[in-house]
């Protein structure tokens, strides 16, 4: 092991759904604080890589290490508790709960006390990230606009105090101005030292904030070595 343990080290990752292999032998590593864009056409396995990292799907083969510790296969809770947080495709919010409750539940990965969660630095940072959500905090998340929901999803991710934030297609279906807000926020999260991994079909936006790029085509990740 060299002087600096990578924040995220992926070796030989394969993900398959039945006979359909979505990701084949992906290998890449991210240094702490590095920002990486996973690009490539849709349906080529970008999201599957993220889901394999986060433990939402079981890995067919390969190894994922978070700060040197091997992640157990298919264990989302472990990943969340060890600093890898997923902001998933379609946001996966809790539509009947208020926006504030959605965000504070991000803290569940590190505390079980509501008052501690509400007073915590990560929760405060999350609220500051998108001040425009402030007036809507008591509104059920399901009644927010698509852009607001995406903001809430990122805020929930930030409330979990992530060391690695994995964001899946943050701007899908959003207006240009909203997309810019979202990427501004991601850039700020990256500047604060969080390792970022962003899945993006249109690489232009992502590459503005990501120094690294991993291109995924037909389930094969290329450009994986350090830039």
């Amino acid at each position, binding site marked *: 092991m060299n002087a600096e343990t990578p924040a995220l080290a992926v070796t030989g990752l394969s993900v398959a759904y039945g006979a359909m292999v979505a990701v084949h032998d992906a290998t890449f590593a991210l240094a702490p604080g590095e920002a990486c864009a996973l690009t490539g056409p849709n349906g080529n396995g970008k999201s599957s890589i993220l889901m394999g990292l986060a433990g939402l799907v079981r890995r067919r083969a390969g190894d994922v290490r978070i700060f040197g510790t091997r992640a157990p296969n298919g264990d989302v*809770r472990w990943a969340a508790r060890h600093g890898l947080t997923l902001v*998933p495709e379609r946001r996966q919010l809790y539509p*009947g709960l208020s926006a504030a409750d959605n965000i504070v539940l991000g803290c569940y990965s590190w505390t079980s006390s509501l008052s501690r969660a509400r007073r915590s630095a990560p929760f405060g940072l999350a609220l500051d990230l998108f001040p425009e959500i402030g007036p809507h905090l008591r509104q059920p998340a399901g009644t927010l606009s698509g852009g607001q929901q995406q903001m809430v999803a990122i805020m929930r991710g930030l409330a979990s105090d992530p060391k690695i934030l994995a964001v899946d297609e943050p701007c899908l279906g959003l207006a240009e101005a909203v997309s810019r807000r979202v990427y501004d926020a991601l850039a700020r999260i990256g500047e604060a030292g969080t390792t970022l991994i962003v899945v993006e079909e249109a690489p232009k936006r992502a590459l503005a904030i990501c120094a690294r790029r991993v291109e995924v085509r037909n389930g094969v990740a290329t450009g994986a070595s350090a830039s």
Partner: protein
Amino acid sequence: MKFGQLVIAGLVTGSIYAVFAVCVSVWYRVSNILNLAVGDFAMLGALGVDDLVRVRNWPLPAAIATTLVVVAVFGYLYDRVVLTLATEGRSAQEGIVVTFFFTFALSFFIDGVAKILFGTDVHAAPALWSGRSLSLLSGLRVERAGVLVLACAVICGSMFWLYIRYTLGGKAMEASGENPLGARIVGIDTQSYRRIIFTGTAVLAAVFGIIESPITGYTYLSGATISLTGFIAAAYGGFRQPGRALVAGLVIGITEALLGGYVSAEYGDTVLYAILAALVLAWPRGLGFEPAVGG
């Protein structure tokens, strides 16, 4: 006077229905499984305590504690083994149909075991607060057991509300019901919430069976009736809204008592179910009948 008396009686049975309706819908939210056996746990509680005290001469506290522990262990194992196997590897849609039969089967199973253990006669757990009925204002009277039932329902209901409202665990439970995938992403163990609530509602049902049985008396078949009424009340909340289920339970209880008192004691239930069916047909959305299975 008669009206007031009937309302009080209806409130007591209504609160029982409400408790069971809330149990059904809270668990449905978390698990997507309709629990048809919840009333049978109530019967098990009532007849179990009665059997231990009356037949085996156990002291009452020990009988209650033992019965509740048995119900809890049984509920836990049933969820752990049978329901886990039943849901594993199935899509949500398939799962609903399959698990429906598993809780239905559980209901029959408990009834069958209860018939062997406790026989077919009407029994009741010993009254926890014995004595003459209490008199309220202007000559209205209320059974002591009824007061206990109401008090217990209010206490359990408000504790649950506080839990949901003011703890992160309660919100996590809500989140598990709203979006299991989203809940797992933030590190919530949705399986264990399902297990805790199944076991918890089984124990709660048993507690209510023990408290309420001195009023009505239970046979080994009483569970199914309670489950059914609780189930109907839960349906009025679209199975997903405990608050509506609670109100529906109270309304059904009071209507049942009034119909029994003024219309016909014999046909009270029949008339009640006819009214409920008519309401659902006439005004499905307003009553909160959302597609519980499809959605």
